[in-house]
């Protein structure tokens, strides 16, 4: 992973510098500038920009200035959604620090998220303006599709939780993960990189399946980590259970348990977040282990990783070997090895 890590670091530095350059533009604005730069300055894996840049290099020979600007747009948009996501989930920590709304209040945080959302279009437009109307059209198409899919995925997850929707299937979960996680996190960055790198000559759907399975593996692994002893990103262990988040494990355990357990589970899900006791949460965690839900989710995550490897080979296998290609292929393993 040394080579891939170095590439990720290089891509991350270039993207971060571009983000800060765009955020520094314009007149100083109180109650806004500080908040816009807060999340980007906290670091982050820069996975999405790196996917974009690597794809631009693979399909275009280099990570051009246009690709770097697109990567900056991706990172800014990602941070904007993180701000809103934290508000929607009531999260207290983000990247080891208090969330923006915890620091400045919900109204200012939402406003900052809105501003960052629209500010992201500046580097995106700058990235594609010189590439011709066809490329602009393609970039706008995949971007609007991503926005729609992401919103739909978020609506599904929040709706299931808030309306206490039970009886979900694994297909429902995958549809939600495809929309909520994979599209914005993996598919869209890869598509932007492909479009810019190939100057619009290649079909953006080429990289859709690889991004989809990579995103599914990522999301399931993330849900699994939340149930581990160290959830990793500042949340309490089993926090997803306490929030009744509809995960693959929850869907599985509800079908694998007996009638009595299902009745207790449904009662648990019907409670509000505050009324769910720690004892019930632990019971549910144990039940998932006992009914094989954890093992099943691990197996599914691994299967999705395998599918991602297959799709990677189908798209990138015929291309000349390159550092960027190796990096993209290593993301499948990185899903499980990341820290």
């Amino acid at each position, binding site marked *: 992973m040394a080579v891939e890590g170095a590439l990720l670091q290089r891509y991350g530095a270039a993207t971060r510098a571009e983000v800060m350059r765009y955020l520094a533009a314009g007149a100083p604005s109180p109650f806004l500038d500080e908040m816009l730069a807060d999340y980007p300055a*906290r670091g*982050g*894996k820069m996975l999405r920009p790196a996917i974009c840049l690597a794809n631009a290099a693979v399909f275009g020979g280099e990570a051009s200035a246009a690709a770097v600007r697109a990567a900056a747009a991706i990172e800014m948009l*990602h941070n904007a*959604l993180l701000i*809103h996501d934290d508000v*929607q989930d009531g999260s207290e920590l983000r*990247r*080891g620090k208090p969330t923006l709304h915890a620091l400045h209040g919900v109204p200012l945080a939402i406003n900052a998220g809105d501003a960052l959302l629209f500010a992201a279009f500046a580097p995106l437009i700058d990235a594609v303006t010189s590439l011709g109307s066809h490329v602009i059209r393609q970039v706008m198409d995949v971007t609007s*599709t991503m926005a729609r*899919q*992401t*919103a739909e*995925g978020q609506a599904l997850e929040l709706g299931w939780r808030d309306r206490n929707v039970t009886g979900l299937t*694994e*297909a429902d979960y*995958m*549809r939600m993960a*495809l*929309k*909520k*996680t994979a599209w*914005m*996190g993996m598919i869209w960055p890869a598509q932007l990189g492909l479009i810019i790198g190939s100057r619009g000559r290649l079909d953006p*759907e080429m990289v*859709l*399946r690889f991004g*989809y*399975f990579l*995103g599914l593996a*990522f*999301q399931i692994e*993330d849900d*699994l*980590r939340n149930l*581990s002893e*160290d959830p*990793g*990103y*500042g949340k309490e262990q089993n926090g997803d259970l306490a929030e009744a988040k509809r995960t693959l494990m929850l869907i599985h355990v509800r079908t694998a348990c007996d009638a009595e357990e299902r009745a207790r589970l449904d009662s648990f899900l019907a409670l509000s977040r505050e009324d769910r006791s720690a004892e019930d949460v632990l019971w549910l965690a144990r039940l998932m282990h006992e009914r*094989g839900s954890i093992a*099943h989710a*691990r*197996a*599914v995550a*691994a*299967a*999705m*990783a*395998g*599918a991602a*490897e*297959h*799709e990677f*080979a*189908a798209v990138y296998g015929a291309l000349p070997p390159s550092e960027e290609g190796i990096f993209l292929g290593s993301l499948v393993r990185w899903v*499980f*090895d*990341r*820290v």
Partner: protein
Amino acid sequence: MTTPENNDPTAPADPQPHIVRPPEGPQTSPNRGPDTGTTTGKAGKGEEAHQPHQTGVRDPDVLAVNEAVASTVRTAYDVLSDTIAQGRKAAEQFRVGAYNVRDVPEDLRHMAGNLLGLARQLSSTTFDICEALLRQADGVMTPPPPGSTHVAPFQTPKGEQAAPKPAAAHAPAPAPAPAAAAAPAHASAPAHAPATAPASEIHLTVTFEGHDSARAHTTTISRPKTPTGTEQFACDGLIQRGGSAAPITAVAFDAHPNGRGMVATVYVPPEHPKGVYVGAVYCATQDLPLGQLVIEIE
């Protein structure tokens, strides 16, 4: 809406060290036929990469799990296909809708073409105007020969050209109409030059409104010495001769519709007393009256 972040430096390097790798072909193959997804099915391209993890695994429970996982992979492909199909359907509906952003380039091209056409016409018209102005300027720059300039006399009633009569001593001599263009200006008369009235007079047609048995005794008035608009003509109130009836003040002047001098419209109230009424006709451009308007109510 986004994937969770994990930047905690204290997090273990590999929190899930015992990841169960996908068993065989189905999880790495897009083939979703009924025979795929089982441990006995054909392996996909990723078989070699994952085979070591599953070598020797033949426990029935594990087989059941593998089949379930394979089914999940198949479901995952179906979910993706459905989503893509929905997106394509939505895009197709959008494309055939009332208006599509894809049409914008064509519309812009059409609009630009129209603009170019308009600009071309405007330029052509502008050049035509410039050319006409240039021709006129050429004509102005060439002074006419002395005596060739003809200035038509002030408005001459057409009706007066029908019956020629001897001209007054101070009036220009009448001439045949066809010779008007060629003859010297001072010796010619316009084609519609009056034949029954000298050039110093204007034919006056008097019409009446209101009373149905009134008639006029005035047929001409003097021509104003300077060009005068019809709105500048006026008449004093018509006073009854030898009586004390109310003056008739509603007299309006206008040009004759056929060019036959002036038309005076006199409104006579229906019950106005009989008699002869007289009033002076003036114009705003001179103090001397142009004549007298004489009417008679019978």
